[in-house]
């Protein structure tokens, strides 16, 4: 199965199978179709399709979202196949080329994947495309057989009426002559055959288990030059000079050139290994006068000191800071805590890379596990002085991202384009990052400090909650600022707190931005990655002070009856039930709970731990999720499992630290990923729902850390306010 595509490849595909019917949305966003044959050189430009049906009946779904493991190849395919009644096993998939209008993410108006929006924004769009094709094929069959559309049935890629039958390909010539229904009827939930079915096999199941799945890292082109970049070891450092005398002795080394951005040296060679070896032999001098030269110890200390000052910004419009303070001042009990969470790297398994390939006609192809064509495409075109239609993006499977591949500057594609241009622009250039580059390269989840002051009444009820976040803004100074910063407040710094579901009588959330040359970025679940930890650990601290059960304590603040609160309460109750919350555990065992809404989905987790001579082991995780209609239940479960693992690994032992501005973690041994032996059984329970589908890629992450911390606190009684846990008094088995 070929899964990369480009306009040229679409044409090649036709050449192989003759004619095909293309169905998609035209520039006005209206469904349209065209039949094309490569031999006739049909003009495909008016239509970048969503669905392609070849004359042999093969259905190809064109995916506007890339696949980084989150399951879009399966999810988007399900949406079309459901309405089209196609044969699941015979559907091919292709990644869409860059087309910012037709393939835009309807959630943010640009072509790109992120914010756990792929299924949510495609749910109606892809189903509609599938339903339109089905209606068209039914009309074509009816006309051909002299019957009425109601007499025609479609099942598993076959169109039937009585003893007559045809596969889709046999009908496309007739279908092309008929008008597409403008508003095809979509199935109702009771008519679903695929949506909600657990037994669907992932579309990327075969090629990812036999070595044939292609990642951009696997691209090799004739005469390709390999490049690595020797970057400034400190963030914000600039190049003064460098020496290649020793590198010249490395076999395969070609040359080295200063990047025009002055933040690195592009090192070129005839193989990846030669490039890596040559880079080690290059000596460079850097100007660090504007660089981040501090250590994280100092940065952390300053974060904590800033917490004690009045917040620069207030994140809640209806906030009454004085009222909150008064409520806490007059409370009969107080809970006060200061939290410090570290910088985190994303560390996707596939180190970043990007290939720029020139063509004789002056065009270039960008080979990339491209998360955000809407940014990468114009960025590369601008650097190379090309018109947008001279730049083609070929999207490959991405070996993970967790947010890292979507940067406002398209950082690694920018590097690749600059390195390509610097090398003369005649030969393909493959830019490769190593794991060392990845961990030292910045774009970290920012460090975050939080102070929490909670007042409790004599009945143990929360009377006021005063919160202050100190963290570096992810989006200020980027094109995302306009959408995500309001009244100076970067929403991603306070999300999940300022808009928390809990009904707190007086809640104020202050924010002070931290400023540093360290590049920071969204990291799977973005702000929720720190706000959920602090909010949910604080809830347990408050419950303990109030001498109440943590589950019941949470439910007390979710009683108003609004849908948001009901859904969060729903997953908490289900998690407590499935985890047998009230059932006593053996000695040395404990449970913790946390719940959080993010990306439209509600997740609760109960984590069970055991302690052996003080060494903590995670025995069991029970996770409940309400994400609206569960399009692919098994993918949702996988995303919860993966999100839990990602969150737990980080909280247990991951941090990026700086020593005089230098990143101290070099490779996985210093940034140890979660391993198979770290975690016991994970059970995922999905709440049945008729609501529109919401995110699943990220929402599994936020509750995992606090659920673990709450379990450990239940066992030891010691508050866990600093992360990672292994550096702050917790030993793991």
């Amino acid at each position, binding site marked *: 199965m070929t899964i990369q595509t480009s306009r040229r490849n679409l044409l090649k595909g036709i050449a192989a199978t003759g004619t095909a019917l293309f169905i998609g949305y035209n520039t006005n966003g209206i469904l349209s179709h065209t039949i094309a044959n490569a031999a006739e050189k049909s003009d495909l430009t008016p239509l970048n399709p969503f669905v392609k049906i070849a004359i042999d009946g093969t259905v190809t779904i064109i995916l506007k979202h890339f696949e980084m493991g989150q399951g879009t190849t399966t999810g988007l395919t399900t949406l079309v196949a459901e309405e089209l009644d196609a044969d699941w096993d015979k559907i091919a998939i292709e990644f869409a080329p860059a087309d910012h209008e037709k393939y835009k993410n309807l959630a943010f108006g640009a072509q790109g994947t992120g914010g756990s929006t792929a299924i949510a924004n495609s749910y109606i769009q892809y189903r509609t495309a599938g339903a339109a094709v089905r209606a068209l094929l039914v009309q074509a069959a009816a006309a051909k057989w002299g019957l009425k559309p109601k007499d025609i049935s479609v099942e598993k890629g076959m169109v039937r009426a009585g003893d007559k039958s045809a596969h889709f390909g046999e009908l496309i010539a007739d279908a092309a002559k008929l008008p597409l229904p403008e508003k095809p009827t979509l199935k109702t939930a009771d008519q679903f055959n695929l949506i909600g079915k657990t037994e669907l096999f*992932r579309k990327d199941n075969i090629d990812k288990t036999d070595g044939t799945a292609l990642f951009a890292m696997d691209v090799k082109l004739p005469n390709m030059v390999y490049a690595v970049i020797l970057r400034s070891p400190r963030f914000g450092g600039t190049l003064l000079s460098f020496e290649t005398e020793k590198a010249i002795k490395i076999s395969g080394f070609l040359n080295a050139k200063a990047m025009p951005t002055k933040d690195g040296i592009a090192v070129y060679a005839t193989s990846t290994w030669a490039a890596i070896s040559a880079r080690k032999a290059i000596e460079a001098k850097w100007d660090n006068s504007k660089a981040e030269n501090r250590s994280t110890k100092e940065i952390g200390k300053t974060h904590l000191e800033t917490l004690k000052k009045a917040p620069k910004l207030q994140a809640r419009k209806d906030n009454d800071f004085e009222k909150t303070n008064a409520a806490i001042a007059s409370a009969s009990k107080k809970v006060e805590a200061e939290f410090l969470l570290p910088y985190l790297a994303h560390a996707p*398994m596939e180190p970043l890379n990007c290939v720029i390939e020139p063509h004789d006609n002056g065009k270039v192809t960008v080979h990339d596990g491209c998360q955000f064509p809407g940014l990468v495409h114009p960025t590369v075109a601008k650097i190379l002085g090309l018109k947008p239609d001279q730049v083609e993006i070929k999207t490959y499977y991405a070996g993970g991202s967790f947010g890292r591949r979507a940067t406002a500057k398209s950082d690694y594609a920018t590097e690749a384009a600059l390195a390509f241009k610097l090398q003369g622009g005649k030969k393909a250039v493959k830019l490769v990052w190593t794991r060392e580059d990845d961990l030292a390269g910045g774009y970290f989840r920012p460090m975050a400090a939080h102070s929490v002051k909670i007042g409790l009444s004599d009945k143990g009820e929360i009377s006021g909650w005063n919160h202050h976040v100190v963290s570096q803004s992810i989006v200020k100074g980027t094109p995302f600022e306009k959408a995500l910063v309001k009244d100076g407040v970067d929403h991603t710094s306070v999300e999940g707190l300022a808009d928390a579901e809990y009904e707190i009588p007086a809640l104020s959330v202050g924010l002070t931005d931290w400023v540093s040359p360290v590049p920071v970025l969204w990291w799977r679940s973005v702000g929720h990655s720190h706000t959920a930890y602090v909010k949910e650990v604080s809830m347990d601290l408050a419950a303990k002070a109030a001498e109440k059960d943590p589950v019941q304590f949470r439910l007390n603040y979710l009683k108003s009856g609004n849908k948001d609160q009901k859904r969060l309460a729903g997953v908490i109750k289900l998690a407590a039930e499935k985890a047998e919350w009230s059932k006593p555990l053996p000695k040395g065992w404990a449970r913790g709970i946390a719940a959080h809404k993010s990306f439209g989905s509600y997740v609760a987790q109960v984590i069970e731990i055991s302690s052996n001579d003080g060494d903590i082991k995670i025995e069991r995780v029970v996770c409940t999720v309400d994400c609206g209609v569960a399009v692919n239940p098994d993918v949702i479960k996988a995303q919860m499992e993966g999100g839990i693992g990602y969150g737990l690994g980080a909280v247990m032992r991951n941090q990026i630290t700086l020593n005089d501005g230098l990143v101290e973690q070099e490779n996985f041994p210093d940034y140890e*990923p979660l391993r198979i032996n770290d975690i016991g059984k994970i059970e995922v329970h999905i709440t049945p729902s008729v609501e529109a589908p919401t995110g699943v890629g990220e929402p599994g992450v936020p509750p995992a850390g606090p659920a673990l911390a709450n379990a450990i606190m239940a066992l030891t009684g010691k508050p866990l306010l600093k992360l990672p846990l292994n550096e702050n008094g917790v030993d793991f088995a």
Partner: protein
Amino acid sequence: MSVILNINGEDKKVDVPEDTPLLWVIRDELNLTGTKFGCGVAACGACTVHINGKPVRSCQTNIQDVEQSKITTIEGLSGEVSKAVQDAWRDLNVVQCGYCQSGQIMSAVGLLSENTKPTDQDIDTAMQGNACRCATYQRIRAAIHLAASNLEA
């Protein structure tokens, strides 16, 4: 230097600097891209291949040391254990991003070739060198058990 390596049953002559790790010979010279580069320091297992049937990290393997060996990559897997493992991986939808899975499968095949009925503990010991940032561990464990029971049946 010029060496002849037996990879997936075929002798391949390659001419590379002598310090080139086996991983980069496999990927850049022989275009067998199923074997992945993840860390370069034998800490993630994405580059796992079999040397005479045993899982080895190719990023830390000197080519001179394997000139007389039989090297197998994911592309060269064959036999009932390999098939059982790959089928189990597919049946249980183990993969997510997929980048580490060639290495996971090579390690799992290595385990089941020596231990036909591994316990959770055996699996954890054999597989803990293979990192998966998507955290597909629970399904990996289940798929190894499934493959073992299918092989036994």
